[in-house]
C-alpha cells in the first residue's frame, strides 16, 4: 500500500525546463475532470452519507423531528447491548456455515467443470444461474424446502429413517437454513472464478507430476491447491464482505405474516444478522441515532475481518 503513496506528483522532467513549473493538479486537471463523474457521484452518494451517519450517531433522532446531541452515549449503549453481540455472533456463525462448504463445493465443481468434455458452456451457465436469481425468490423457495411437514429436506431425512427437524423453529436449524441458501447461491459463481484460476495452471506441471507417478488426489493437493491459493484468497475475501452484510436471505426466509417485526430474525433472534439488527433499530424503533451507531459497529467488525484477510494476503506476498 505504501508504494502507491511514495511518488509525489512532481513536475515531469520534460516540462521542468519551462518558465513555470506546473504542479500535478494543474498539469493533470483535465484528467481529473475526465474521471470526475465517479468521484462526484461517490461524494454525493458515498462520502456525504457516510459522514452524515457519523454525525447522526452522535445524536438522538426519530428521523423526522429535531436532533438532540447525545455525545458518545449511543456507542456506550452499543458496547453493552447483548442483542447486538448476539447479532454479531449470528452473522459470523452463518458466514462460517455458508462459506467453508461453499468453497469446498465450488472447488470440486470447478475441477469437474475443468475436465468436462462436452456441453462445457451449458454447465457453466447452469452453475452461474443461482447467482443471478433474485434472493427473494430463492428465499421463498427455501422456506418451502425447509418447512417442517412438507419440506424437501425433512422428506429426505425421513426417507433415510431420521426424525423431522423443525428447521425454521430452532436456533441451529435457522442458521443452517440461511447458510444453505447462501451456499447454494454462491457456489456456482465461485466455481466459475476457480475455473478461471484452474485454466491458468500450466499443463506441463500436470504432465511432470504424471511422469513422477502422482495420482489424481496427490496432483490435486500438491499442484492444483497451491497454485490456486491467490484465487482462493480472493474468493474468501469477497465471501467475507458479502457474508458479513447478509440481510435479504434471513429477512425473507424468516419473515412471518403476523404483525411481527420483519427484522427480528426468527425465534430467539437466531437468524438476526448485524444488518438486520441495524434495520430493526432504525426503521422499526425509529431510533436513527442508535441505528447509525450500530452501522458503525458493523463497519468496525468488517474492518477487523478485512485486516485478518489482508494479513493472510500479505503473508502470501512475503513467501
Amino acid at each position, binding site marked *: 500500500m505504501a508504494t502507491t503513496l511514495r511518488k509525489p506528483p512532481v513536475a515531469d522532467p520534460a516540462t521542468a525546463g519551462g518558465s513555470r513549473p506546473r504542479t500535478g493538479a494543474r498539469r493533470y486537471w*483535465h*484528467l481529473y*475532470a*475526465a474521471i*470526475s*463523474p465517479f468521484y*462526484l457521484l461517490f461524494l454525493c452518494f458515498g462520502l456525504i452519507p457516510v459522514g452524515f451517519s457519523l454525525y447522526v450517531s452522535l445524536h*438522538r433522532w*426519530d*428521523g*423526522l*423531528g429535531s436532533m438532540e446531541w447525545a455525545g458518545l452515549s449511543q456507542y456506550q*449503549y452499543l458496547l*453493552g*447491548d*447483548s*442483542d447486538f453481540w448476539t447479532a454479531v455472533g449470528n452473522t459470523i456463525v452463518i458466514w462460517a456455515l455458508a462459506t467453508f462448504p461453499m468453497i469446498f463445493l465450488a472447488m470440486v465443481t470447478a475441477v469437474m467443470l475443468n475436465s468436462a468434455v462436452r456441453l462445457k458452456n451449458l454447465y457453466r451457465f447452469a452453475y452461474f444461474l443461482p447467482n443471478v436469481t433474485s434472493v427473494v425468490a430463492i428465499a421463498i423457495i427455501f*422456506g*418451502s424446502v425447509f*418447512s*417442517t*411437514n*412438507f*419440506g424437501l429436506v425433512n422428506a429426505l431425512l425421513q426417507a433415510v429413517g431420521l426424525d423431522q427437524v*423443525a428447521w*425454521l*423453529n*430452532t*436456533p441451529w436449524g435457522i442458521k443452517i437454513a440461511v447458510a444453505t441458501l447462501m451456499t447454494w447461491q454462491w457456489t456456482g459463481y465461485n466455481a466459475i472464478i476457480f475455473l478461471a484460476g484452474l485454466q491458468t495452471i500450466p499443463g506441463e506441471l500436470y504432465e511432470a507430476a504424471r511422469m513422477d507417478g502422482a495420482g489424481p488426489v496427490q496432483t490435486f493437493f500438491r499442484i492444483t491447491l497451491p497454485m490456486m491459493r491467490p484465487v482462493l484468497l480472493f474468493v474468501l475475501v469477497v465471501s467475507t464482505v458479502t457474508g458479513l452484510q447478509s440481510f435479504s436471505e434471513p429477512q425473507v426466509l424468516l*419473515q*412471518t*405474516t*403476523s*404483525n*411481527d*417485526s420483519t427484522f*427480528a430474525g426468527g*425465534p*430467539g*433472534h437466531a437468524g438476526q444478522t448485524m444488518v438486520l439488527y441495524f434495520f*430493526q433499530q432504525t*426503521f*422499526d*424503533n*425509529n*431510533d436513527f441515532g*442508535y441505528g447509525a451507531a450500530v452501522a458503525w459497529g458493523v463497519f468496525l467488525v468488517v474492518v477487523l475481518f478485512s485486516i485478518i484477510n489482508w494479513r493472510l494476503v500479505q503473508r502470501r506476498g512475503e513467501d
Partner: protein
Amino acid sequence: MRLSRRGLLRAGLAGTAATTLGGLATGCAVPTGSTGRNMVLWYWDGGLGDTVVKKAKARYGDSVDLQAIKIGGYYRSKLMTTMTGRSHIPDIAGLKGEDMASYLPNADQFVDLRTLGAERYRSRYLAWKWDQGIADDGSMVGFPIDCGPVAHYYQYGVFRKAGLPYDPDDVSAELNTWEKFFTAGERLKKRIPGTYLLSDVNMVFENVVQQGDRRYVDKDRHFIGDEQHVRDAWALAVEAKRRGIVSDLVAGTPDQLSAVQDGKLPSQLNASWATNDIKSGVPRTKGRWRVAQMPVRPSNNGGSFLAVTKACREPERAFQIITWLLDAANQAQGFVDAGLFPSTPASYTLGALREPDPFFGGQITMDVFGPAAQRVEVAYNSPFDVALGQPLKDEIKNVGVLGKDPRKAWNDAMRKCRRIATHLGVSH
C-alpha cells in the same frame, strides 16, 4: 469522424461540467412541495379504493391536477426521507396506522386539520379512530381512512365435528372469555387429534394487550409493560401453551397454510382485512369459514389516515378532497375495491357491505365486524411502544416456540425493557 484523445477529454469535461452545473442549478431550485396545478397524493397499493381515487381526479379536475401516486416498498421510510429532505413533499400523505406513533410527535410537519374545520365531521366517524389521529398537543394530524376490527374466524364444519358451538351467534356468546376459549381448544384437540385452536402464543399475548386501553408506555413517557395488564396477557399466553392448544407451526409457511386447509388449524383471531388473506392463501376452504366475535371484547389491528403536509400550498382544497374521498359512500366503495373497512358507521348499513359472502357460507360478515368496530377500545399510541413491546413479544415467542422457561423469559424481557427504556429516556 476521427476522435482524438484531446477531443474525447474535452467532451468528457464539458459533459461533466454540464451535469454538475445542471445539478447545482436544479439543486438550488428544488421545490419543497408540488408545483403548478398539481396536488400530489401519496399512498400505497390498497391504501385507497382505486375507483374512488379515479373519481376524485375527475371531480376536482377543474381546479387541480390530482396526482395520486402509489409508493411501493417501505412506505414510511420513503415519506420520512422526503419530508426530512424538504423537497417534493406530497400535499396529501397517507399515514399507516402502525406508523402513527412516529408521526404524531412531529405534528408540526402537518397542517392541524382542526384549523380547516375538521370538527364538523367528527360525529360521522368512529370516536376511537378519530382520536387516534390526534397528537398529544391536541392538533389533528390524520383523517380516518379505514380500521381493522379483530374477530374470530373459524371453520364451521370442524367446530361442529368437535362438538363445539358452531353457529356464529353461539360461538360469539359461548366462547366469550379466554377461559371458555381455551376449554374449547382442549375439547377440539381431544375430539380431533392433531388439531389446534391457536397457531402460536403470540396470537393470545398480542390480542389481549391490544384489547386493553393501556400498552407498554403511557402518555407521561413511563414504562408500564411490567404492570398487571401485561402480566395478565403474558399469563394467558403461557396458559394456552401449558394446556397444549397451540400448534408449533410458523405463520405464513406452507406447513401452516396446509394445516389451515386441512382443518387442523380451524380458527384465527384476526382483523377484518385478513378476509382477503384467507381467500387468497387457502382458496379451497371456500364456504367453510364463519366469523364470530372474539373472546372478551373486540380489538383493532391496523387502519390508516390521510394527512395534509405543511408543504401543501392549498390546504383548504386538500382538505376538501380528503373529506370527499373518505365520506361514508366512498368508504363503502373502498371496502368493495380494496377491503378497507370503513371508519364511518353510516357505511355499515349500505347494501354493498351487506352482501352475503359465499366464502363464509353466505354469512353477512358485516353483522360481526360492524358492531365489533363500534366497541373497540384503544390504548395510547406511544412512539416508544414498538421498541419496548418487542422484547416481550420476542420472549413470549421463545416460550411458545423454543420452550423457554416462562419465568426466566419474563425476567429476561423485563431486564431488556429496563435497559431500552433508560436508553430511550422512558422512566421505569
